[in-house]
């Protein structure tokens, strides 16, 4: 069974540009979560999508946005990039949230390393 995949592996942008990161969940998983892992800050929850809907978002500005497609893959868009957006962005997937979501395991992709110059 294929795991969670993310693309690209690395992304280099300059301040003010836009970045698009992609995630494909494990087959059968409908929930996709995005996290930011910046140096020294731990994992910060960004966004949660399920069945094409945004279910929750973390404490990030609106220039962080995304969407989930009918095949449950997801995109994370970061507009007007700032230097502090440089981080590892991790995507995770889990089963349908209606199924005892508090026990559903999240499976993580390898991440996209975003560097803003």
């Amino acid at each position, binding site marked *: 069974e294929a795991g969670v995949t993310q693309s690209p592996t690395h992304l280099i942008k300059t301040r003010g540009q836009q970045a698009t990161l992609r995630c494909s969940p494990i087959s059968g998983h409908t929930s996709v979560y995005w996290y930011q892992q910046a140096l020294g800050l731990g994992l910060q929850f960004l966004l949660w999508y399920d069945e094409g809907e945004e279910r929750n978002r973390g404490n990030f500005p609106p220039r962080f946005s995304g969407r989930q497609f009918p095949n449950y893959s997801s995109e994370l868009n970061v507009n007007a990039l700032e230097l502090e957006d440089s981080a590892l962005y991790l995507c995770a997937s889990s089963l349908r*949230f209606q199924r005892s979501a*508090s026990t559903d*395991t999240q499976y993580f992709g390898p*991440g996209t390393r975003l560097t803003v110059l």
Partner: protein
Amino acid sequence: AQSVTQLDSHVSVSEGTPVLLRCNYSSSYSPSLFWYVQHPNKGLQLLLKYTSAATLVKGINGFEAEFKKSETSFHLTKPSAHMSDAAEYFCVLTGGSYIPTFGRGTSLIVHP
């Protein structure tokens, strides 16, 4: 509100000696608890999870963790450390929220 505290930011052991990574939690709901490992520049890999079944949970690579409700703890142990165990370890809590709460992580250093 729920929270996770990993009591050590760094743990240093010699190869072949036991590993103990400590995690305390706080939750108003019945918790589900997870341990993940992250090797440098990689994603997180699930080591083990507790979901209100057996309190002693066995995971991959010889790791295990014990859920102690009275102590609100979920410490991760391994009898004998291997060089390949050197990595960052995260304790994660869910329960009452669909959004997991992550600990700040513990860096495990293994000396030859």
